[in-house]
């Protein structure tokens, strides 16, 4: 068992340089290395901006996502994430992908509660499995390393005038007894930080409805139907964008928004931003550095609303 120093002490001030000890283990997960590359980019940028050192887990592997636990009584879904917990060397680990976050927490829970699994894990890793590292999702992470007050100070209400639909989806809060994050029936953790950017974040009734999860390939109609409703409600309530922290949700809401329009004859154009991208914009980073131009649905109107550089709107134009 390696020594872990308690990490509640001496959280880095936003913007200040920090000691190596304060670094966080970083688990990008598969999506962030491909389809959700912009999520990875924006997260690293914002973390750096806030003076947080990230230490990517050495030779990390896929968390197994949904398919693993669905097979063979679930232990595959425990051991795959376990390997990453085992190789995470810091007190705290941040997993921006909510799917990975969910699997890592589940794995942690199962290991802690099952002798049998601990034995299995030891057989695999050839030593007692390390799993105590604190697993944080993106929202928890930012809430930890900065505070609404500090943030507000820095951003000077840059995002004033926007009304953002906070979208948590399923896996960040469920199952409640394992995730114990926020209130499973009414998560609110994104709000304080978003409000600090000067934006509004009114109650979004679909904040924790499901977007259709990984059914996109196998049963697309489920995704299109579920995501359509989420987008339409956000649109009907006049939100400027949907904010998510989940690559899969993003894929369903953004990448497939075109498919939704052609399937239902709708003409939705609801930008879907990653939580990290919103913080990035608030901190004054460039939209295309944050990978906002990588989205399918143009965020031009939104960017104009907050008076963001014209060059970006250019790029966005040719895209859509």
């Amino acid at each position: 068992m390696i020594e872990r120093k308690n990490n509640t002490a001496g959280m880095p001030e936003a913007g200040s340089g920090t000691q190596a000890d304060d670094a966080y283990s970083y688990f990008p997960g598969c999506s962030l290395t491909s389809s959700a590359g912009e999520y990875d980019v924006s997260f690293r940028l914002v973390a750096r901006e806030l003076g947080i050192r990230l230490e990517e887990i050495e030779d990390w592997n896929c968390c197994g996502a949904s398919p693993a636990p669905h097979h063979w009584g679930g232990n595959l879904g425990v051991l795959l994430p376990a390997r990453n917990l085992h190789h995470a060397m810091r007190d705290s680990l941040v997993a921006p992908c909510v799917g990975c976050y969910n699997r890592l927490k589940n794995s942690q829970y199962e290991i802690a509660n099952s002798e049998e699994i601990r034995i299995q894990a030891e057989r695999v890793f050839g030593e007692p499995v390390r799993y105590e590292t604190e697993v944080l999702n993106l929202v928890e992470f930012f809430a930890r390393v900065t505070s609404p007050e500090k943030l507000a100070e820095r951003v000077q209400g840059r995002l004033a005038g926007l009304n953002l639909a906070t979208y948590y989806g399923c896996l960040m809060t469920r199952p409640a007894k394992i995730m114990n994050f926020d209130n499973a029936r009414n998560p609110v953790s994104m709000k304080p930080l978003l409000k600090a950017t000067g934006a509004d974040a009114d109650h979004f009734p679909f904040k924790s409805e499901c977007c259709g999860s990984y059914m996109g390939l196998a049963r697309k109609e489920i995704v299109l139907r579920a995501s359509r409703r989420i987008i339409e409600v956000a649109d009907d309530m006049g939100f400027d964008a949907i904010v998510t922290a989940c690559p899969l949700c993003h894929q369903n809401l953004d990448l497939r928004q075109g498919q939704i329009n052609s399937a239902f004859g709708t003409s939705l154009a609801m930008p879907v931003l990653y939580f990290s991208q919103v913080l990035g914009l608030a901190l004054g980073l460039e939209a295309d550095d944050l990978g906002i131009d990588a989205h399918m649905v143009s965020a031009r109107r939104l960017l104009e609303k907050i008076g963001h550089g014209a060059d970006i709107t250019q790029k966005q134009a040719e895209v859509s």
Partner: protein
Amino acid sequence: MRIGVFVCQCGTNIAGTVTTDKVVSAATSMRDVVHAETLQYSCSDPGQRQILEAVQKKSLTRVVLAACSPRMHETTFRRAVTRAGMNPFMLEMVNIREQCSWIHSDIDQATDKAIDIVRKGVAKARGLKPLFPGRVPVTKHVLVIGGGVAGIQTALDIADAGLPVTLVEKSPTIGGNMARLDKTFPTLDCSSCILTPRMVEAKQHENISLMVNSEVEKVRGYIGNFEIDIRKKATCVIEDRCTGCMICQEKCPGKAPDDFNAGVGLSKAISISFPQAVPMVATLRKEYCRQFIKGKCGVCKKVCPADAIDYEQEDVMVTEKFGAIVAATGYELYDWREAYPDYGGGQYPDVITSLQYERMLSASGPTGGHVQRPSDGAEPKNVVFVSCVGSRDESVGRPFCCSVGCMYIAKQAILTKEHIPDSQSYVFYIDIRATGKGYEEFTRRAQKEFGALYLRGRVGKIYPWHGRLMVMGTDTLSGDQVEIEADLVVLATGFAASTGAGELARRMNISYDQYEFFNESHPKLRPVETNTGGVFLAGACQGPKDIPDSVAQASAAAAKVIGLLSKGELETSPMVAEVNQTACVGRFKCREVCPYGAIEELELRDGRVVANVIDSLCQGCGLCNVACPPAVIPLKGYTDNQLIAEVVEVLR
């Protein structure tokens, strides 16, 4: 010493898991036991006669009865042995049902335990002494707490029997929740038409003194002799001057929430709750009054023709003696907002509670009886009713049924159709609970004659949709998801005990459940009594109830009070402390711990000052018994020797 042991079989309730014959044969071998037998039903007439005969034939001096809980029937059997010419306190009753046969399935274990329990009883019985109840005079004055329909009914019944009653109500008017209802199920009687006359009667009754804006602060004493502090809160209005002309309300510039109308519409800082309020007296709420916020205004004082305004008025503490208390503190609607974010958590103006809707339907309500969407005042066409909000929902800690929701929804669905003929009501329900007289027929009418569409299922989500509300639910009968575009959604919110009920219960020393509803003494046989002598229950403070049940219970409580106070004196329990004055060293530790001030100093002939127990004040808690350094103040019926004997024998 001749002890008789009787083992009740209670049919199979006891005999099912306890081999009573074994218990009897074990009993026969216990010291001083000269007689032992089983009884099939000891509480039945033949059962009691069997005991009586045995006592006389075997000239028994003590009786040990192993049966149900003494909390249930002890008094019954004390009376039984008295008929056999025995002192009632020579009976020891032990519990082999609730605390043995009903909680074990292994017959041998249960039987062994029963034998231990009987041995314990016999041991204690050896220490029994004849006791003789004392007598105390009772105060013929009744306190009724809560001026809803239950409180009013109790007060009137008691007052009609010639006993003086003080009716305390914390809000500015009596009438309670019933006064807010438009119509009542299943007859569709106009609620205020039947209640208002009773309110007036209560006000005018020569034996009833009404105290509004008042709350019970402290309760001292005991059955027959309570001494109670009541705080009358300052209202800045001199009650006997105010004529209820309402000019002050008209002219008052200070807006304030309308509590009586459940938040529908606005009221004034100084106001009379509603036109039929009793008493018809204005109340000023400082937290909204400019005079108090800004320090200047004084409009009401200027305009009042009766010079009834007094900004300096202060709370008044009234202390009176009472012989009995009736708690009728009623209920409040459960505050659903925190628990149901999926229904908007209170953020959608057109999702309202059943009580708010009731006020809308009422001709005397803020909308003059016109049903309007709070958001835009439009007349709703599609009205969705959602059952069981904060009822039958363990996930929000409210597992119980509100017992009236199904009925008032049916009523409101009917009234909706009457108000808006081209409207359509949709009712989501889990089960229709319509058990009262004419109730089932009523819910049928709502569907058959008034076209309400009932869907069996719970609503999962409500959200704003193109200026209306989308209701996502299930129709479990067809097995499908259903969605309804609604103009107005009415939540059938469940019952909660009224704010501060638990606190009041503690002041009165009565027990209450986790939802702060008051506990009756016995669910079947003592439904209006509490475990504290002289304190009775009426209405929804004991649990969700509709109007007929509340009124019935109110009259029942009245009958109990009248019965209690019909005697000039009350028997006090003889199980009180008693000082062995030859051994008392006069350190008065007993007086320090006594909650009732029942210890007095007594100077003996030899000049020694010793402690003396005032029997009429002692409630028999036994605190002094333990506190006394030389241990010379035994509690009769629970002496150290008796308890030690119990312990020794039970562990044998």
